[in-house]
């Protein structure tokens, strides 16, 4: 690892002036007052509006497209189809299987077929109805099990794997022997149903093509850099002629990580018409775009010794990928790779298979790939505890993987605050006096998890930094930080501001952040895999330290003192040993500019070499892992089957909370999302392959009155490589919510729910089954 990547966990000037304080976000006031500019707020002179024609069939061959009537409609400027954008793309360079608009085939109901640019949205919509598409229907795959065995017709033709998107089989240690010699084995099946992100802002993109041939695309994306690369590939334009800008973003959660059809369409239509073009998706279209959490059918077999020590875990997972690859290669690895903490198991095997189906494509959602297996495994761990009559917290403590260690699959773990997380939720929930002892119908459940703070696997292989930053120092006293990092509401721009202010001793209003503009900012790989605080934070410190050295040197020379005596704090430069030596920091900028010429600095971060020495060993290998434990408290109405999550205690090891208010917000938001997935949300298609209810009325996310009380308990393990010791907080804290609720339901009423979501109907059926097993009479219609 390069020295530049390691800055230590301590404050740059002895004690923190900014870090650790509950400060306002840089864009907080703009958002609260409505001044923030989102993609759909952009209106350019002469701008056209574009709409997408979508496939009404789940699987069909396109025989012909006739757009002549649409083009004849007054106000219509252009119609494009797959023929205009034949180059395939995909966020993972090895699996480019998407077209901006369908070429020859459509693969799900909602697949984009054509796009129209017109003077306004109504004209564009009217034009869509005038496009005639002739389809030849093909067999539609709606059940992933069918895709495993049937490959004709293939959803993607010309692949030797047929309808199998990806298979990963990895084995660590003598798993079969370990299971054969275990004292106890628990084996069971679990189902994750599929959910989507439901970010409040729909996808939107605006493109402008200048007279001198520069294409600018503003897009509601969480990864400007990959959109930039994909645009260059598909449009066959030199990348330096393309500028991608991410305006203020209204939520993403992974759902804006892929390059999307609309970005290519507005770019092409702008180039074609010579006018700026905007496309805003309807809520319905956002549901078709999807890229939500994959449905998984999971079988786990766990062996342990009598004292509850894990001996081996054997997993087989079928993943329903929907119609395209998206991040599916990574998903298939993550489904196995990210399970190997916070508990140690000496042997492990996972066999994950992702298949294509004719449904909206799945992708990354907060806790990508690992939320589903985590649910299965943490329920299985509770089943094991039950079998061995062990306390569920105790079995988790006993199997703690430890800190500064390596997991069975070769992942390096540095800091690890998981035990402290368990302690915190145990104490806060009054676990020892309440678990197993609450009245029938009320219960507590625990679960743990770990997650990555970015990985050392860049989506396209390269040895350049994963994060870069530039600082520009102005004679006015302002420092501008340019970062390619994407602030998607998680607060990454705020983190940059805090770090620059901390390092250079500036007041917060002396630092402004310019982000996610590929013309202005150095490359950053974007907001995914919980990488931004860790990597951009380290890059920011790196740049600041270079600048700080110049400022200190200039001041030391000015005062003719040793550099060690110079301090920068709260906008002032001070000499620690001579009170007559003090200057406003802006004058220090001037001194340094006189001495070094125009001031500025760059900084970067790249991961150290990580991961196991095997194919796929770097996928999921992170410079630092976060750890989480939840205790959920539920009540179960045994007459209605309704589960109400009353409270979740969330303890999360984020390394160091750079802003505890933002960390707590991420923890609460994560737990909220997990609870929603456990009890309410369900992203499914009906028997025609058509989305069951692509609206926020029918796709049910909890309202404020459905949300449990959330208690965020921050644990700081001070990671040796994180910026001031920080690790991620945006995704990890989601994982335990779902199994903690299942485990709490077991504590409440003695049923094991293994198939999500935990609907009242499933609860009633499980209660009836339990009564039947116990020989009690069952009463239809909710017996009391």
């Amino acid at each position: 690892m390069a020295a530049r990547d390691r800055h230590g966990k301590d404050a740059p000037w002895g004690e923190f002036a900014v870090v650790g304080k509950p400060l306002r976000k840089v864009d907080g006031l703009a958002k609260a007052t409505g001044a923030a500019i989102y993609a759909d707020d952009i209106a350019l002179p002469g701008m056209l509006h574009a709409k997408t024609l979508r496939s009404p069939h789940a699987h069909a061959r396109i025989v012909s497209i006739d757009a002549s009537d649409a083009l004849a409609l007054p106000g219509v400027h252009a119609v494009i189809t797959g023929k205009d954008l034949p180059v395939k793309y995909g966020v993972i360079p090895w699996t480019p299987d998407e077209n901006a608009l369908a070429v020859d085939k459509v693969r799900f109901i909602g697949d984009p077929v054509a796009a129209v640019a017109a003077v306004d949205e109504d004209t564009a919509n009217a034009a869509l109805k005038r496009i005639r598409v002739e389809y030849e229907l093909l067999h539609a795959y709606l059940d992933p099990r069918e895709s495993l065995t049937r490959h004709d017709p293939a959803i993607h033709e010309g692949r030797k794997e047929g309808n199998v998107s990806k298979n990963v089989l990895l084995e660590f240690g003598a798993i079969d022997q370990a299971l054969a010699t275990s004292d106890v084995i628990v084996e069971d099946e679990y189902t994750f149903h599929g959910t989507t992100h439901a970010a409040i802002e729909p996808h939107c993109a605006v493109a402008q093509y200048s007279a001198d041939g520069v294409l600018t695309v503003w897009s509601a994306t969480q990864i400007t850099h990959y959109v930039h690369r994909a645009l260059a590939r598909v449009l066959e334009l030199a990348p330096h002629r393309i500028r991608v800008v991410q305006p203020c973003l209204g939520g993403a959660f992974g759902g804006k990580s892929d390059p999307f059809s609309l970005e290519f369409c507005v770019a092409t239509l702008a180039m074609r018409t010579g006018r700026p073009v905007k496309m805003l998706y309807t809520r319905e279209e956002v549901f078709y775009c999807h890229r939500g959490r994959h449905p998984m059918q999971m079988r786990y077999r766990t062996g342990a010794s009598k004292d509850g020590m894990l001996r081996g875990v054997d997993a087989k997972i079928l993943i329903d990928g929907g119609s395209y690859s998206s991040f599916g290669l990574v998903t298939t690895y993550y489904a196995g790779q990210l399970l190997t903490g916070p508990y140690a198991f000496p042997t492990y095997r996972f066999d994950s298979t992702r298949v294509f189906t004719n449904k909206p494509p799945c992708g990354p959602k907060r806790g990508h790939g690992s939320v589903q297996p985590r649910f299965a495994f943490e329920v299985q761990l509770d089943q094991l505890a039950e079998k061995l009559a062990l306390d569920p917290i105790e079995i988790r403590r006993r199997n703690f993987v430890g800190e500064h260690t390596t997991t069975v699959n070769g992942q390096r773990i540095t800091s690890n605050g998981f035990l402290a997380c368990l302690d915190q939720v145990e104490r806060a929930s009054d676990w020892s006096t309440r678990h197993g002892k609450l009245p029938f119908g009320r219960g507590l459940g625990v679960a743990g998890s770990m997650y990555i703070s970015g990985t050392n696997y860049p989506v396209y292989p390269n040895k350049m930094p994963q994060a870069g930053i530039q600082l520009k120092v102005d004679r006015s006293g302002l420092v501008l930080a340019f970062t390619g990092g994407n602030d998607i509401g998680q607060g990454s721009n705020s983190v940059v501001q805090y770090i620059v202010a901390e390092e250079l001793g500036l007041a917060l209003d002396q630092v402004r952040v310019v982000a996610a503009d590929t013309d202005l900012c150095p490359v950053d790989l974007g907001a995914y895999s919980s990488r931004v605080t860790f990597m951009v934070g380290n890059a920011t410190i790196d740049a600041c330290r270079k600048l700080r050295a110049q400022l200190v040197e200039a001041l030391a020379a000015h005062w003719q003192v040793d550099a060690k005596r110079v301090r920068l704090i709260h906008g002032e430069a001070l000499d620690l040993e001579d009170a007559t030596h003090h200057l406003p920091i802006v004058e220090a900028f001037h001194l340094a500019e006189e001495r070094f010429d125009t001031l500025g600095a760059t900084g970067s971060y790249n991961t150290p070499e990580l991961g196991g020495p095997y194919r796929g060993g770097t996928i999921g290998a992170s410079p630092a892992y976060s750890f989480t434990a939840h205790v959920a408290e539920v009540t179960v109405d045994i007459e209605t089957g309704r589960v109400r999550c009353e409270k979740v205690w969330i303890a999360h090891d984020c390394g160091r909370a750079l802003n505890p208010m933002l960390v707590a917000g991420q923890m609460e938001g994560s737990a909220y999302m997990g609870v929603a997935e456990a009890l309410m949300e369900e992203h499914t298609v009906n028997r025609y392959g058509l989305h069951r209810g692509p609206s926020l009325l029918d796709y049910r996310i909890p309202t404020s009155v459905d949300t449990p009380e959330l208690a965020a308990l921050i644990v700081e393990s001070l990671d040796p490589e994180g910026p001031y010791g920080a690790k991620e907080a945006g995704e990890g804290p989601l994982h335990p919510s779902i199994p903690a609720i299942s485990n709490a339901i077991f504590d409440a009423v003695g049923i094991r729910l293994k198939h999500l979501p935990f609907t009242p109907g499933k609860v009633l059926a499980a209660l009836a089954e339990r009564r039947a097993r116990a020989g009690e009479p069952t009463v239809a219609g909710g017996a009391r």
Partner: protein
Amino acid sequence: MLRLPKFEVATPSSVGEAIALLAEAGPSALVVAGGTDLLPNLKHELATPELVVSLAGIRELVGIRVDAGGALAIGAMTTLAEVAASELVRTRAPALAQAASLVAGPQLRTMGTLGGNVLLDTRCQWINQSYFWRSALGFCLKKDGTKCHVVEGGKKCVAAASNDTAPALMTLGATLELEGATGRRSQPLDDFWVADGIYNKKLAHAELLTEVRVPPTAAGHRGAYGKLRERNSIDFPLLGVAVRLDVDAAERIQAVDIVVTALAAQPKRLARVAELLFGLPARGAEFERALEAVAATAAKQCNPLPHIPGDHEWRKAMVPVWVRRTLRAAAERGGPVHED
């Protein structure tokens, strides 16, 4: 965002003016009250009117009063929030106040009106969708198509009445005051419905609901409304149960009525309920036993279809539970019955 289709909006200031506008424009013209149901439906292209007549400017349609005959008279344009909060409604017609308080969410209740809720169009998971969505199925019986996706081979639309206030008003013996081009009429709500999900009302074009009248309730009147839904706000009912339970001075049950909704195209009055409860005390072991019997007969009489979103088997299982809970709530002067 889905676009509203283009149409003219008229804003008459009197009922007569509104009726004349509607009569002149013909059957494609529509009425908008609060717009909370109509506007999403228009965005879904469930109707494509050239003219929409807004009742928002007609002052005479707003207000809650007791008329000369002692009936509670509620103007059709009175908002659901006002109905829910009204002391007059809460004391004289608790089931109605409770039902109004559970319609949609707080913002929608300040826009949505009592008249609009009573006249709410029927709903179905196969119809309350965008034009594109419906076109992917070749549409359905209710609009633009010939096939029913709920009942295979079904020839009659089974979209569900989803208006929370209607069953409550039925238990209260309410009458609708209607005014049209040919004059005024009083229409008992009980006899207002038609078993047809395409259009479930006996309401002619250019006929306006002006007022809802609830006859005086007995001194021992009790009522409650129970609403089953997935979330504790926003959602339409998966099942609605309205109860009237009048008692005499000795707390013995003198009158019972139960009307359920969200099961079929029209609200449904449960049969054989009065005989199970009449004369019984409204609390105690005997009452509880009778509740079980009422719940059992309710279960037999109700067979929810998979028309609205949600698990219809669970909805069926919840019929006896919600009937029992709502009856008990009425007896105890409690309610509404929902999850909070």
